């Protein structure tokens, strides 16, 4: 197929015009949307929460929400450099606390919204428990422990079980816990540590919910970004996320109940 210069120019002009007109429309409508930056492990849960918040009758309707998914570290760096997010749902405490220290969040807006649980997942195993982990040979998928809280927790578990220095286990690191899941799901590693929220629908034989004494709690905190132009709407969404109704849903997705005094932050 030959493309003539004329038809090419027409196509370019047409697309430019349609883009322009779309822009004008968007500016006229002035729909206010909240931009929520969320750590990868919580993004699915958040989308469901938003759907519930929209449809529930006893709740004021939530504003329109754009979800931006990334790793906690990336989103943090973007916020430090002025990214236009209103709320940041991190996968840890460290980055939100750092933002607060740097004066980049709205006052008193740092709250724990979920406590993650670590699971050992092996789709081809007949049963999974502490013993199957101790007998493990070869590749074991984890999230990068220097970046991802679930990876840090995985290392703590291996240390607690005296498996950290074994040469028979070869740690394969995903950039975040979603990638660790993908390594196992694609069959490239037989098993590994993932977030319990990712494997809620897997059978009990394949997954072992790691007992809490083996790792420090994976507290996930949220903040309202200081530069937000929609403080009221942001506060409304945060209140909803911390409400009993939302917390129940969060727990159904594989998270622990919040510690009692977490709201005091």
């Amino acid at each position: 197929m030959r493309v003539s210069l004329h038809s090419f120019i027409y196509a370019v002009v047409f697309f430019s015009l349609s883009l322009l007109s779309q822009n004008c429309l968007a500016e006229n409508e002035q729909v206010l949307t909240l931009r929520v930056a969320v750590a990868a492990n919580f993004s699915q849960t958040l989308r469901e929460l938003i759907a519930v918040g929209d449809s529930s009758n006893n709740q004021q309707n939530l504003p329109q929400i754009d979800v931006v998914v990334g790793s906690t570290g990336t989103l943090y760096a973007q916020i430090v450099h002025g990214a236009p997010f209103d709320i940041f749902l991190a996968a840890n405490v460290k980055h939100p606390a750092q933002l607060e220290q740097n004066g980049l969040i709205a006052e008193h807006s740092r709250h724990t919204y979920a406590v993650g649980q670590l699971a050992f997942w092996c789709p081809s195993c007949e049963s999974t428990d502490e013993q199957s982990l101790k007998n493990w040979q070869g590749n074991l998928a984890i999230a990068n422990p220097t970046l991802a809280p679930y990876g840090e927790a995985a290392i703590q578990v291996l240390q607690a079980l005296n498996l950290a220095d074994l040469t028979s286990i070869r740690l394969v690191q995903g950039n975040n816990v979603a990638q660790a899941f993908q390594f196992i799901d694609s069959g490239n590693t037989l098993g590994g540590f993932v977030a319990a929220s990712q494997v809620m629908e897997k059978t009990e034989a394949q997954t072992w919910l790691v007992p809490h004494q083996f790792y420090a709690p994976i507290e996930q905190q949220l903040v309202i970004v200081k530069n937000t132009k929609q403080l009221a709407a942001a506060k409304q969404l945060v209140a909803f996320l911390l409400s009993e109704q939302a917390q129940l849903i969060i727990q159904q997705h594989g998270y622990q109940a919040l510690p009692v005094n977490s709201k005091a932050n």
Partner: protein
Amino acid sequence: MAATDITALWLTLKLAFITSCILLVIGTPLAWWLSGWQSRFKPLVLAIVALPLVLPPTVLGFYLLIAFSPQSEFGALWQNITGKQLAFSFYGILLGSILYSLPFMLQPLYAAFSQLPKTYLDVAHTLGMGKVARFCKIVVPLTKASFISAFGLCFAHTLGEFGVVLMIGGNIPGETQVLSIALFDHVESMQYQQAHVLAAGLLVLSFVLLVVLYRQHGKKAQLWG
């Protein structure tokens, strides 16, 4: 520079060098064949070899991850032959780099071979010069500059590889943790000082490499002029 960063630097140079060497061996006959081939399917083949230029590396990484899995035929075959797994190994990222940088070897060579005046070869042929001798004694000397720039471009492009390795590498120091991944880790974990060292190092390295390549290019232009 931390010890792990030096390991990453060495690994990256090794990966880039081996990738470029293998591509030179694969790319030369492929480009030569393509330059002489006439068929209505030619645009199809040209499009396929140029795909890595336009595809996001994540597409390549995603498909490779599926292909490398021991559950796939390719992954199983590899495991049967070598006894090892492709994903999360140096050979895995090497294979990824070869696919990813293929167009950077092919394009310069293909362009050079296509522009080569066929009369030289015809004359040599009538004088009784063999096929291989014609290629080595006429084609290679005339297109030397393109070989150098193709090799250099492959090398430089592999240095900057990120997405594919991120998806199939598994971040293993000394095996799959290349410089760009180490840099990414530093940035993500707020170690900006170390990130600066690596980023500046990569910038200077790539710049110097490109300057050398363009100087080469300039000389070639004079030669042909």
